[in-house]
């Protein structure tokens, strides 16, 4: 595939690793924010190829993983209402809520349908005018504009049976929360690639300025990640923290203005609950008053039992970069992709699922 295969060149990769080894001397703790980057790093064995002074930590960049149990419980409660069709991206279905998953609700006769796009959810709403079609809006800035478009299209077409449960999350506020917590000391951040396609690289500028931490936005091919690490190493060695872009074919400082406008038109920032992290001000997106008739939380009266977390699961600590899946007593024993206990084992971008799939940590 063009714009992917060229960035998987093994020979160039080896030479980039050599260059990083030559130039890196100081201890460097780097966090790859995105689960997508964790996949690239683990799949290609990048962590093992880097010099010993560079440590890679996984961050909270997995929207499925950071969805709070209480929010998932809302989706499940919606699924159990009569006359409701739930539409969702596939990776949400098996995530355990406090008492059940969407998958279990489906097995108990709830109408839960996996869609690839909000376009498909809208089509289901058009074809089922007597039903209420709710889309479970989970995702970061990459996804939120696509969900905003569906609301605008529903408004334009006068589709009255389409609703969104907005559980969206924003990345810069959680980065700030992690840095303010003081729990993890970082020297550099591999900034999200496809979030930045939308937001641009500007929103990260507070990180080098206020925290003195190096930043570079990376794409998801192995050479993209290596180029990003090389940039971070240069910033750390020269003590010149700033925001660089190692993914210029898709990311600019300004981002996608049209997508940002659409997102702003439909949503407004609100506090959001992050699993294992807590409530972070301004880190979520609520449906604006003007579009409230599309807001599932306004349209349906939901009774949610008090949330609870799975016993022994350390997903929260893993999402904060404080622990790794290897530190979890459940990992590979009671928690497996077939029988996931926590969300990080369910999502393809969850650290536990990635470590499990590629056998990461067997060297220890």
């Amino acid at each position, binding site marked *: 595939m063009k714009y992917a295969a060229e960035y998987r060149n093994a020979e160039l990769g080896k030479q980039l690793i050599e260059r990083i080894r030559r130039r890196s001397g100081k201890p460097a703790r780097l966090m790859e924010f995105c689960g997508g980057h964790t996949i690239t790093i683990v799949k290609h064995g990048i962590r093992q190829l880097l010099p010993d002074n560079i440590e890679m930590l996984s961050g909270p960049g997995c929207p499925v993983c950071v969805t709070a149990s209480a929010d998932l419980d809302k989706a499940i409660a919606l699924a159990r209402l009569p006359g409701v069709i739930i539409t969702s991206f596939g990776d949400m279905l098996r995530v355990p809520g406090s008492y059940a998953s969407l998958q279990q609700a489906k097995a108990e006769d709830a109408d839960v349908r996996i869609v690839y796009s909000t376009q498909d959810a809208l089509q289901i709403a058009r074809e089922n005018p007597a039903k209420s079609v709710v889309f479970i809006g989970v995702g*970061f800035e990459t996804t939120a504009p*696509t969900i905003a478009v569906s609301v605008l299209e529903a408004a334009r077409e006068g589709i009255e049976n389409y609703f969104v449960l907005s559980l969206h999350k924003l990345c810069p506020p959680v980065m700030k929360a992690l840095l303010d917590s003081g729990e993890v000391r970082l020297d550099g951040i591999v900034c999200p690639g496809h979030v930045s396609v939308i937001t641009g690289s500007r929103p990260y500028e507070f990180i080098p300025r206020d925290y003195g931490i190096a930043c570079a936005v990376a794409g998801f091919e192995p050479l993209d990640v290596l180029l990003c690490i090389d940039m971070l190493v240069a910033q750390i060695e020269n003590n010149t923290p700033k925001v660089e872009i190692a993914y210029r074919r898709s990311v600019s400082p300004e981002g996608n203005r049209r997508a940002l406008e659409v997102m702003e038109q439909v949503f407004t920032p609100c506090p959001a609950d992050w699993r294992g992290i807590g409530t972070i001000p301004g880190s979520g997106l609520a449906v604006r008053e003007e579009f409230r008739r599309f807001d599932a939380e306004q349209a349906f009266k939901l009774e949610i039992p008090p949330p609870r977390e799975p016993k022994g699961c350390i997903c929260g600590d893993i999402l904060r970069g404080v622990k790794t899946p290897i530190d979890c007593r459940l990992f590979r024993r009671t928690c497996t992709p077939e029988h996931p206990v926590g969300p990080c084992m369910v999502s393809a971008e969850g650290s536990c699922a990635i470590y499990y799939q590629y056998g990461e940590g067997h060297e220890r």
Partner: protein
Amino acid sequence: MCLAIPALVKAIDGQQADVEIEGVSRRVSIWLTPEVKVGDYVLLHTGYAINVIDAAEAEITLGLMREMVSGSEAGEQPGA
């Protein structure tokens, strides 16, 4: 969740486009990329084109990487 893949735009029809990904055709929304033209590559995310891939920047990055590993220290950090 944030997975996005390059797709080649083959035809445009209002706010939708036909794109090709490894030989497979799909109809996608171009609401977020009104500037897209036939022949462009876009990043495709959940049925939406979320940007137009910048072909010139792609070449520059590849050139930069080749230069970086060619051993010429003078060639390091161009444009930095």
